[in-house]
């Protein structure tokens, strides 16, 4: 039968690209922080450069991230309401405290790490890991509790966010470690140089594995969308064959997921730093595409 909507009032999409970029930056921060702490706790001296890079990058990205939130507010000068008026049922209330505590912890951790106080750095790192995961996990809950949107309201969302955060965090570590290895290691001995090369290659393997796990989760999500209710089916069509297909299938899945995994696991490319560097850049782009698809496509199906 033919249907035609003659008149209707759609309202503007509430959350835009700044929110997607905010999710991306907290993800980068959480991922690089966890990588940094793990490499410090392992106690191996050859992992040290990664620990240091992560300790600097994690607080830096997290200082930029809330700026996106602030400019997205319609009443930016009222941001302090978040700390005075609480709603224990809202994930944003938890988030505003996590977004304050986590970077402070991260900065103190970096301070002790660079001062050479390993013991205190390790302790603060241990405290920081759950904080980092909570800081990024809560953003997943923001979307998961947005019950009206079919793409968002899945129990998989917080896990998906944390796993993709790990992918992008390790990706950023590889990219920065490669730059350091290539341009800023003039004073290092050949042995150290070789150590750093091996470190980059082994990090790339970990990134490839986590990226494949991330793809597995995305696959689960899409499969269930297809066998679920009308709105879920509609949004699944939108991202797989509709307007968001180039960004979702093209950039997120192929360019940012399958191709990097191939590059790091294929023996001929996996032992070359330049291909691992390329793979890390591709995952960084792919995860950014994932954030944009989730936020924007999630709001692109009509609600009434």
């Amino acid at each position: 039968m033919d249907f035609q909507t003659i008149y209707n009032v759609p309202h503007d999409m509430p959350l835009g690209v700044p929110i997607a970029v905010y999710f991306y930056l907290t993800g980068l921060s959480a991922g690089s922080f966890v990588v940094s702490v793990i490499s410090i706790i392992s106690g191996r001296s050859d992992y040290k450069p990664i620990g240091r890079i992560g300790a600097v990058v994690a607080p830096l990205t997290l200082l930029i991230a809330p700026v996106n939130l602030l400019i997205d507010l319609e009443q930016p000068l009222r941001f302090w309401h978040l700390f005075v008026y609480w709603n224990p049922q809202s994930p944003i209330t938890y988030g505003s405290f996590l977004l304050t505590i986590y970077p402070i912890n991260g900065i103190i951790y970096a301070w002790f790490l660079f001062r050479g106080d390993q013991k205190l750095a390790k302790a603060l790192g241990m405290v920081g890991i759950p904080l980092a995961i909570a800081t990024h996990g809560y953003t997943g809950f923001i979307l998961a509790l947005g019950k009206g949107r079919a793409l968002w309201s899945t129990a998989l969302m917080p896990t998906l966010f944390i796993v993709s955060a790990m992918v992008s965090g390790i990706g950023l570590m590889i990219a920065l470690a490669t730059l350091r290895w290539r341009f800023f290691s003039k004073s290092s001995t050949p042995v150290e140089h070789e150590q750093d090369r091996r470190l980059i290659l082994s990090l790339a393997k970990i990134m490839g594995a986590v990226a494949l796990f991330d793809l597995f989760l995305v696959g689960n999500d899409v499969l269930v969308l297809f066998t679920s209710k009308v709105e879920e089916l509609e949004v699944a069509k939108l991202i797989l064959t509709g307007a968001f297909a180039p960004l979702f299938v093209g950039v997120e899945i192929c360019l940012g997921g399958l191709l990097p995994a191939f590059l790091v696991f294929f023996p001929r490319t996996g032992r070359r730093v330049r291909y691992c560097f390329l793979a890390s850049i591709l995952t960084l782009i792919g995860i950014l595409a994932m954030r944009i698809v989730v936020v924007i496509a999630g709001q692109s199906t009509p609600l009434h």
Partner: protein
Amino acid sequence: MVIDLRKCVGCHSCSVACKAENDVPPSVFRSWVKIIEKGKYPNVSRSFLPSLCNNCESPICVRNCPVGASFKREDGIVLVNPHRCIGCKYCIASCPYDVRFINPIRKIVQKCYFCHHLVDAGMQPACVETCIGRARVFGDLNDPNSDVAQLVAKHPVTVLKQEMATQPQVYYIGADLDAMDPMKGRLEAVNSDR
């Protein structure tokens, strides 16, 4: 509120009355009438769906508001405290009915409040007062003698997206299934069906 669609003629008086009563700026609406057409000539029909905030019994927007600006009054009306709202737009994103919006002048979230200022003064909401077919009826559902309670008791009624467990408080009599479906009548939805 009960909306008896057998009496609705799709005149948009409710939308206009709402705009005038509540100073709703251009480009946004607190209440509007969705219109769809279906079928092929000569077997065609046009259906109306007056749309407004459902002032849900368990509202997702209130649960998700980080600063408690959205709240439910004791009588069930869901309000936004204009002085507390920070404009994070999370409530708009979580509402399954897309009835909330940012007021482009005041830069806060607004929606239909069942004209609570009139209701508190013992009057009817503007849309109810103005409805030429008397399709809209407003009252206390807990009072068995009220018009709304009697209408809901005597007629088959329906609400929008019952599956969201929000318990919407706008009841429709004689609503068209296709008018209530967000996907029907959209170009992309039509194309994907073929």
